[in-house]
């Protein structure tokens, strides 16, 4: 049955509350989310297409896309590995301090980003606890793009852990057992048996982490150094435009970030939907 037909036929909807929940949701989304966004497009309406293009392709702004996307990609990849490791350890092993470690995973969500930013900058500056260890070895973290990636990774790690964890928990024991009984080594079994179940969640989590990193400002600005063409992030470019009373310019750059992020989120949602459908074999 096609979705439309399902929707039309009353029998598919035995559950009540369609009108109420639809009403609340649509009202809320319109008032809280969409109405303010129109303000953004209202600003854009004042620009010609050529002006819009000129703003969003200006050299310094383009350089900031590169920095932001590059650092976000590195942060997301690091988090994919680190997050997978943490999720695995939290689900599969018992050890002292496990509950503490589990609780710690949400810290980046719970900690205000400005606090995270100030703290990371303090830790990783040349005279900070970490910086004073790393800099003699030739690793400069603060005020380089590594610092940006670090701040991004910090603020987005829970996305990966919290998406992978439940899937790993739900994985039936037979999956392992089957693999092990065939005599496969751990590495091979993990790659061949576990990963196919995990990677949709892993991609989703990593994707969310990536999107989150694209928009982050508070945590990054303290540690970035903000050198033009080198360590300026796109969110700073928006901030700069605002300082110049250039609302249209700020809105133009913001719209680029918004479109890219929304497109990625839509892709992730479709991906997730497909995955759930495949698991449950239903219409989703």
């Amino acid at each position, binding site marked *: 049955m096609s979705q439309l037909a399902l*929707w039309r036929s009353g029998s598919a909807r035995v559950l009540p509350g369609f009108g109420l929940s639809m009403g609340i949701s649509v009202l809320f989304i319109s008032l809280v989310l969409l109405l303010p966004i129109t303000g953004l497009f209202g600003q854009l309406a004042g620009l010609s297409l050529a002006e819009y293009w000129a703003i969003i392709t200006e050299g310094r702004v383009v350089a900031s896309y590169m920095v932001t996307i590059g650092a976000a990609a590195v942060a997301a990849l690091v988090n994919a590995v680190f997050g997978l*490791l943490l999720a695995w350890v939290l689900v599969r092993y018992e050890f002292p301090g496990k509950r503490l470690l589990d609780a710690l995973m949400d810290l980046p969500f719970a900690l205000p980003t400005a606090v995270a930013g100030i703290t990371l900058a303090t830790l990783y500056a040349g005279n900070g606890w970490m910086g004073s260890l790393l800099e003699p070895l030739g690793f400069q973290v603060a005020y380089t793009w590594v610092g940006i990636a670090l701040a991004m990774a910090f603020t987005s790690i829970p996305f990966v852990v919290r998406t992978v964890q439940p899937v790993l928990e739900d994985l039936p024991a037979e999956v392992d057992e089957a693999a092990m009984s065939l005599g496969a080594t751990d590495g091979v079994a993990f790659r061949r048996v576990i990963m196919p179940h995990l990677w949709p969640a892993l991609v989703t989590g990593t994707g969310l982490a990536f999107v989150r990193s694209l928009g982050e400002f508070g945590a990054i600005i303290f540690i970035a150094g903000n050198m033009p063409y080198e360590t300026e992030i796109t969110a700073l470019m928006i901030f700069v435009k605002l300082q110049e009373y250039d609302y249209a310019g700020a809105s133009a750059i913001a719209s680029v970030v918004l479109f890219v992020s929304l497109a990625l989120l839509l892709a992730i949602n479709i991906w997730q939907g497909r995955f759930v459908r495949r698991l449950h074999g239903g219409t989703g």
Partner: protein
Amino acid sequence: MRRIGDAPAVRRLLIGAALLLSALFLLLPLVAIFAQAFSQGVMVFWANVSNTFTLHAIGLTLVIALLTIPICLVFGVALAWLVTRFSFPGRRILQTLIDIPFAVSPVVAGLIYLLLYGRNGWIGSWLDTHDIQLMFAWPGILMVTIFVTCPFVARELIPLMQAQGSREEEAAVTLGAGGWTTFRRVTLPNIRWALLYGIILTNARAVGEFGAVSVVAGAIRGKTNTLPLHLEQLYQDYNAVGAFASAALLALIALLTLAAKAGLEWRAARQEAFL
């Protein structure tokens, strides 16, 4: 039966790596905050915390969080119910729209509210002629806080409710239960931990939001200064200890939040074991 990664060496290696990385990456910043806050002793910390402006900032921050939570709760449950219990065109779009706050940089979130409800905005100018002020007053702070926090409850509930399916509820309705009763007796018990986790995340973000609030609050000390704004001001005034004292308070709220969550999960696990 042996499971993957059960060999003691692998186990130790992985646990060790996870603990070490978490300690460096997550725990160390937390320790640093408290170390800085107490670097000049408990008395200085206390003097900073009990200052009038700090107390006002704490009060305002908590009020905003308390007002935000019920609103986000109602919306989150309604949306999750809608997209997981019914099939209709535009469902996926609706589900993506709710992610807008994740996609919008907080500074931009503040800006779009300012453009709409500020003195020059098309709603704001009307409000201004009626002498109603939303921006640079606490309603504005509440509005942007709702904007940035509204996805959390829904995002927690949707995957869970999707995975659980609607068979139990359908059965209840078929047996003659009303809509509200069905929701209360069947749905709510199934989603309560996710719901509470959503509330906890909402609270954490509401308490800590900086970027969006800084645009619409105007940072009037003793009036529209939330704790994160207050913290930034102290930091700007060379009062690093005071700033980290506020940071420690926020971190403490974060820790209480995490403890509440861990407690809930533990309780949930125990109940499941009973059944």
